[in-house]
């Protein structure tokens, strides 16, 4: 069974982002997707701290502490990029102007509920940032994550046990083992890594997964 590594997973997500898409990449693993976007496609990266047309990391020594992304890493601005304030930035998100948002997750339910902001552990200091706005705002919210926890539990679940970020907001989940489409009728397996079967995947997740018809 060929588990995708982080780079392969980022590359897999990048493949599904079409030219001209307005995209917000969440903090952490999703940020890596930027490195795999095909150079022949113009794709607009938005960062919710107020920039659109985000470019790659600057050359060493060229960092500008006032030009950062939502993960507070130094970035650059492409020609054609723009700056704006936080209310306009989240209007882009909440108003449905972003085509695709890619987020990490602790858990995703088969109908698309997302849990990615808080483990709910006693004593943990909660912090939400833009997670809830990102989850429900974009036209499509993709999640990328490893399918199983280190303990082997499925993070794709019937019902999230962690505190929710948003309800029925995730349309697609990219994992190291398979890609799933989510919706009111549950999860459908769109693709699997070589050597994996739908039966094995059902066993790993404990879910009654449907299998998408093969594409023409």
């Amino acid at each position, binding site marked *: 069974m060929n588990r995708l590594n982080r780079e392969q997973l980022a590359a897999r997500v990048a493949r599904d982002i079409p*030219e*001209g898409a*307005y995209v917000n990449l969440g903090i952490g693993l999703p940020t890596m997707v930027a490195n795999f976007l095909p150079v022949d496609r*113009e794709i*607009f990266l*938005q960062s919710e701290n107020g920039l*659109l*047309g985000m470019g790659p990391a600057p050359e060493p020594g060229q960092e500008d502490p006032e030009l950062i992304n939502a993960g507070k890493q130094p970035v650059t*601005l492409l*020609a*054609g*990029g*723009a*700056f*704006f304030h936080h*209310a*306009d930035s*989240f*209007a*882009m*998100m*909440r*108003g*449905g*102007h*972003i085509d695709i948002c890619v987020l990490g997750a602790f858990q995703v339910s088969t109908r698309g509920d997302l849990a990615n902001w808080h483990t709910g552990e006693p004593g943990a200091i909660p912090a939400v940032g833009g997670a809830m706005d990102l989850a429900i*705002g974009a036209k499509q919210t993709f999640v990328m994550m490893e399918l199983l926890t280190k303990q082997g539990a499925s993070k794709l679940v019937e019902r999230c046990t962690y505190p929710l970020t948003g309800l029925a907001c995730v349309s697609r989940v990219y994992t190291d083992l398979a890609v799933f489409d989510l919706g009111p009728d549950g999860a459908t397996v769109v693709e699997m890594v070589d050597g994996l079967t739908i039966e094995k995947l059902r066993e790993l997740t404990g879910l009654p997964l449907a299998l998408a018809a093969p594409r023409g």
Partner: protein
Amino acid sequence: MIDKGFASIDQAVADIFDGASVMVGGFGTAGMPDELIDALIARNVGELTIISNNAGNGETGLAALIKAGRVRKVICSFPRQADSHHFDARYRAGEIELELVPQGNLAARIQAAGAGLGAIFTPTGFGTLLAEGKETRRIDGKDYVLEYPIHADFALIKAQRADRWGNLVYRKTARNFGPIMAMAAKTAIAQVAEIVPLGSLDPEAIVTPGIFVQRVVQVAPGAAH
């Protein structure tokens, strides 16, 4: 390569359909996208809902669209003017429905649509005819009216310069409703005096980022199309 520039103004409005809701920028004639409206008139679609501050002046622009009988409903703040005779006639004949909205509520409702809010409590209009039948609420000792966002299928706006990504800058008070209408419409179409190379607009001074603009078309001042 993404290029939102349209070669012809007729193509830019070619999919505006019967019954569409269309925001039209401008305050009086400043910022009024006359050439886009002319192209829309030429398309011969009807039953339009127009969202704009006014309801047309004289014989051109919105007034001509109304004269041509293409408009079913107008949502605006100030339809009646000395030279709004085409609107006046259609309205008195019962051929046009009017939703009168205080100008600031019009702006706030358009902005709320662009920002994805479900509704807003605004103080403007409380206790007046224009709030009749609307939900009200006292919050912190002040009275508010619940108003809903105004979305549209299309926005026709006028800006000064654009690039191929749809970034816009405006000119003086022609800016008015342009930036918020671009945010509130599914398809925002901007006529501009000039399309400039990518990177020539100052990223600190772009008023409407391209994400809110689907089409731009260059219109030489006074040019026929």
